[in-house]
């Protein structure tokens, strides 16, 4: 085998991805997930080819019907001539660190469509952040030429909210009959919704949920230009998905015409740069300075009240350096 540098291998892999090679795309995403230096090399080659696709996040409580909605949405979008890539992110991992990722079970009828790509992602370590890894994976699929990217995440915790935050349009799927009604999911995910889907509209409680969401929206005065529409669907029967697709495209138009797309992407990239830089500071500046015998000794001083935590921190990062 010819030896080549990681840099060359990364460039070659991306070149192959750009030509539409799925095997290469699969590998690029794995490398992004595994983290490490390869990610930077891959992103260097990928990034100039990204920024074209729209990213739609589909989030909501466990079992709301997100994957079934995605499956049906793929059908509608394909009929509309779109090339669709799906990233199904499941951040729940038990103690073993392993995971059973089953979202794609509901989407297998699209598995042989060349214009559809479906990828599952677990939580793993992702020290760089699950949001960053999933966003980079979406960028790879963007570079490959998929016009529309769908990201499914379970909307319960902070990391899921962060994943949803990388989308241009966020669809929140709400099932009827959640114990406390909409209150149960209000914290966090109500605020990020651009579109609500009340799925399982075949359920008698569906109209109650629609009314509840409407109440919450009425109190929300933060959005003068776009009031999130509420779409009722019966995903298992394929009902309401055309309507959802119309709303997604409307939102896209709103984002583009109002300049909000530009603003959102700018804000997201700013956050991303800062996160990458913060991680670097931690790894390259803080870690070496705290992994020393001197630091252990200083810690003892703090424990035994000879020094306070502020004075100790001053030894690691002097105020002037932090300010300069």
């Amino acid at each position, binding site marked *: 085998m010819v030896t080549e540098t990681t840099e060359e291998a990364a460039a070659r892999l991306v070149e192959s991805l750009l030509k539409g090679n*799925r*095997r290469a*795309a*699969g*590998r690029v*995403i*794995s490398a992004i*997930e*595994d*983290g*490490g230096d390869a990610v930077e090399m891959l992103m260097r080659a990928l990034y100039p080819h990204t920024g074209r696709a729209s990213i739609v996040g589909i989030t909501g409580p466990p079992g709301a019907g997100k994957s079934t909605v995605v499956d049906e949405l793929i059908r509608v979008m394909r009929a509309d001539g779109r090339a669709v890539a799906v990233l199904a992110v499941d951040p729940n991992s*038990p103690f*073993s*660190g*392993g*995971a*059973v*990722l*089953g979202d*794609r*079970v509901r989407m*297998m009828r699209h*598995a*042989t469509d060349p214009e559809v*790509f*479906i*990828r*599952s992602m*677990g939580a*793993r*370590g*992702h*020290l*760089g952040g699950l949001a960053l*890894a999933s966003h980079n994976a979406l960028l790879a699929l963007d570079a490959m030429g998929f016009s529309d990217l769908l990201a499914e995440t379970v909307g319960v915790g902070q990391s899921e909210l962060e994943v949803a935050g990388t989308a241009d349009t966020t669809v929140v799927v709400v099932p009827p009959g959640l114990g406390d009604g909409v209150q149960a999911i209000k914290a966090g995910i109500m605020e990020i919704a651009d579109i609500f889907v009340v799925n399982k509209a075949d359920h008698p409680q569906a109209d109650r949920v629609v009314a509840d969401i409407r109440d919450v929206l009425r109190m929300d005065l933060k959005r003068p230009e776009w009031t999130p529409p509420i779409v009722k669907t019966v995903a298992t029967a394929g009902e309401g998905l055309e309507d959802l697709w119309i709303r997604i495209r409307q939102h896209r138009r709103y984002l583009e015409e109002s300049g909000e797309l530009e603003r959102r992407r700018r804000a997201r990239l700013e956050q991303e740069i800062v996160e990458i830089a913060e991680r670097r500071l931690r790894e390259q500046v803080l870690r070496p300075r705290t992994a020393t015998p001197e630091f252990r000794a200083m810690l003892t001083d703090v424990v035994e009240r000879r020094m306070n935590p502020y004075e100790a921190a001053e030894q690691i990062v002097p105020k002037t350096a932090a300010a300069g």
Partner: protein
Amino acid sequence: MSEPRLRILMAKAGLDGHDRGVKVVARALRDAGMEVIYTGLHQTPEQVVRAAVDEDVDAIGLSILSGAHMTIFPRILELLREQEAEDIILFGGGTIPEDDLQELKRMGVAELFTPGAYTQEIVEWVRENVGEKAAGGSAAPS
């Protein structure tokens, strides 16, 4: 950096309608720290291979109980070669007669488990035979 983790695609081919066995193995692999991508029932070779490529798995575990093993396993091997994905290890399980079993292994199926196999046996086999990551450099099926 998150550590590389084994990814295993678990699928069920053929017409028979339950997947209890596959799910038990899937959960056992998960408990052993692996990422299992589960694709469900009635999968065709085309669907399985496409999913395996998109998901970039290290191995495919396929369960067939309905007797179509002599067409389905070879077809998957053929499709993997077409996709330049023959490095993805194929193993499986089902009620497979000894002669067929030997024949399939000759063709390139890495291992086959018959219904009497213990779940832990399968987990051990995967750990030892799949992925350089797991076996410390040796990806060769035994």
